C-alpha cells in the first residue's frame, strides 16, 4: 500500500470516527433497548418467584411492581422443592440433572471417539461413513419418534431413565463437529505420537482430547441445552414421577383451571439454574468455535 493511500485511509477513518460519535450513541441506545426486551421478562420471572401471593403476582403484573418485591420470600421454593409427594419438583430437578449428566457425559465420549476415528483413522470407507453421518443430520427427531415409541415400549423401556438417555447419546451433528475440530489439528501431532509407538486410542486420549477443550465445551453447551429442554420425547415415554424430568412437570401447571403462577415461577427458576451454570462455566470457549464448521457443513 502506498503512503498516499495510507494517509487517505487515515483521514477517512478519522472523519468517520467524528461522524460516528452520534451514531455510537444511537447504537448504544439500541443495545440497551434490546437488552431491556431480552432481560425484563427473565427479571420479572425471578422477582415473581420471590412473591408469596399468587393473586398479588398477577395484580402486580400490569405495573412496575412486577419488577420489585418488597418482602422477598423463598416460600414458593420450599413449597415446590419436595423430593416426593404432589409438588416434588426437587425430585424432577434431580431426575433432569441425572439425565443431563449421563447424556452429555456419554455423548462427549461416544461422539468424540467417532469424530476422531473419522478424521485420523486408517479404516477404509471412512469418507463414506462421514458422508452418511452428514446425511443422517437431515432427519428430524420429530419424524422418527413414532416408530421409536413402539420400539422402546416393545423393549420394555417405557418410564425409565435409560429411555431418555440412550437414544440421544450419539448424534450426527456432534460427531461432525468433533470431526471438523480434530481434522484441523496438525498432522505432525498424530505422526509424532505414532512414531513413539502410541496406539490410536492412546493418541486420542492423551494428545487430541486434552487439546479439544473448545470442542468439548461447545458440544457440552449445545447438547446440554438440547437435553435439558427435551419435551416431546419425555411426555411420550414417561408416565410416573419415577423418571419424569422437570420440563414435563412444569408443563402440567398449564392443564389446570387457574394456574398457580407462584409455584410455576419458582419451579421455572429452579429449572434455569443448572443450565445457566453450565453455560456460564463453558461460554468462554463456546462462541467462537462451533459456528464456522456448522455453516460450511
Amino acid at each position, binding site marked *: 500500500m502506498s503512503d498516499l493511500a495510507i494517509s487517505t485511509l487515515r483521514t477517512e477513518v478519522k472523519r468517520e470516527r467524528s461522524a460516528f460519535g452520534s451514531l455510537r450513541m444511537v447504537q448504544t441506545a439500541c443495545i440497551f433497548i434490546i437488552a431491556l426486551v431480552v432481560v425484563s*421478562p427473565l427479571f420479572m420471572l425471578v422477582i415473581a418467584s420471590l412473591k408469596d401471593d399468587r393473586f398479588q403476582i398477577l395484580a402486580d403484573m400490569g405495573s412496575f411492581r412486577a419488577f420489585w418485591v418488597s418482602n422477598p420470600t423463598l416460600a414458593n421454593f420450599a413449597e415446590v422443592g419436595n423430593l416426593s409427594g404432589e409438588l416434588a419438583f426437587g425430585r424432577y430437578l434431580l431426575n433432569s440433572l441425572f439425565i443431563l449428566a449421563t447424556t452429555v457425559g456419554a455423548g462427549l465420549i461416544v461422539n468424540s471417539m467417532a469424530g476422531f476415528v473419522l478424521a485420523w483413522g486408517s479404516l477404509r470407507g471412512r469418507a463414506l461413513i462421514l458422508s452418511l453421518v452428514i446425511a443422517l443430520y437431515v432427519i428430524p427427531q420429530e419424524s422418527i419418534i413414532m416408530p421409536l415409541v413402539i420400539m422402546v415400549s416393545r423393549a420394555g423401556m417405557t418410564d425409565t431413565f435409560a429411555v431418555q438417555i440412550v437414544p440421544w447419546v450419539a448424534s450426527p451433528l456432534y460427531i461432525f463437529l468433533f470431526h471438523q475440530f480434530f481434522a484441523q489439528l496438525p498432522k505432525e501431532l498424530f505422526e509424532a505420537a505414532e512414531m513413539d509407538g502410541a496406539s490410536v486410542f492412546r493418541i486420542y486420549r492423551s494428545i487430541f482430547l486434552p487439546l479439544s477443550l473448545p470442542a468439548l465445551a461447545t458440544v457440552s453447551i449445545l447438547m446440554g441445552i438440547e437435553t435439558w429442554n427435551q419435551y416431546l420425547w419425555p411426555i411420550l415415554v414417561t408416565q410416573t414421577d419415577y423418571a419424569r424430568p422437570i420440563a414435563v412437570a412444569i408443563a402440567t401447571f398449564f392443564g389446570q383451571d387457574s394456574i398457580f403462577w407462584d409455584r410455576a415461577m419458582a419451579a421455572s427458576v429452579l429449572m434455569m439454574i443448572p443450565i445457566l451454570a453450565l453455560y456460564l462455566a463453558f461460554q468462554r470457549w463456546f462462541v467462537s468455535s462451533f459456528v464456522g464448521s456448522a455453516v460450511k457443513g
Partner: protein
Amino acid sequence: MTLQQPALAATAVAARPAIRRDRSRLLQEIGMLAPAVALLTIFLIVPFLLSFWTAMTNQPLVPRPTPVRFIGLTNFLRIFKDDLFWTSLWNVSRFTFWVLPVQCGLAFATALLLHQKLPFRNFFRGLFFLPAITSMVVVCVIWGTLFQYPTGPLNQVIGFLSGGRIQPIDWLGDPNWAMFSIVLLSAWQAYGFQMIVYLAGLQGIPDELYDAARIDGANAIQRFWHVTMPGLRPTHVFVLVITTIQAFKLYTQVAILTQGGPKSSTETVVHYMVRAGFEEQKLGYASAVSVILFLIVLVIALVQRQLLRRYDV
C-alpha cells in the same frame, strides 16, 4: 537422501511387527467407532426406515389382537383429504412467514450492533443468549403471564404507549392473534442462536476488504452493501434454512399454551402428528405424517445445498 536411508532400513526390519500393529490399530479404530455406529443404527436409522413401513400399515398405539395390516398409501390419502392437516400446514407456513423476518432480522441487527467496538459487548453477547438457553416450558410460563388478558404486562405497555387508544388484545385467545403471539415468544426465545451465527459470519469477513473499499472511497452504506452483505451470503442461507426447518417442527409452545386452538389457528404439523398418534392412537397414520414432515425438511435442506453451491463455498 542420506537421512532417509536408515529410515528405510528400519521400516524393512520392522515390517512384520508393523502388520500386527496395523491389525490391532484397525481393531481399536473399529472399537472406537462402534458405539456411535451402533447407537445411530438402532435409534436413528432403524426407526427412520421403520417409519416408512409403519406409515403404510394400520398400526395402533396399543397392541390389539387383530394383526397389523398393510394398507398401502391409504394413510397418505386420508391425510391429504383431512382439512385439519392442510390447516396445520398453512399455519406453520404463516408462522414461518412471520418468524423469519422477526427472528432473523432481530438477530442480524443485534449482531451488527455487537460487531462494533462497543463497551461491554462481550457482556451483552452473553446476556442476549440467555433466552436461548431457557427451556421452552419456562418461556411459556413467562410469556403466559405477559400475554394475560386484559391486564397483562404486554397489554399495559401497549396501552401506555398508545395513550389508551389500542384496546387490550386477547393474545392467545383470539384466533387472529394467537399464531402471531406464538411468533413473538418463539423469536424472543431463539434469536440468540442466529445472533451468534451472524457474529461468526461477520468475524469471518477479512478487515482488508473493508480497508480496500475505504481506499476506493466507499462510504459506510456502500461498504455494508458491497462488502458485508456478499460476505454474509452463506451465513444468510444457513440462518434462513435452519430457522425455516425449526419453524416447520413447531410444537412445544403450541402444545403448552394453546393446544392448537383457538379454532385450530395454531394447529401445527407436529402437534397434528402427536394428536393422531397418541390421542387417537393411530400410530400408522401418525407415521405417515412424520414421513411427510421428513420430506418437507429434506426439500428445504436440498435447497440450502443448491444455494450454497451456487455461492461457491
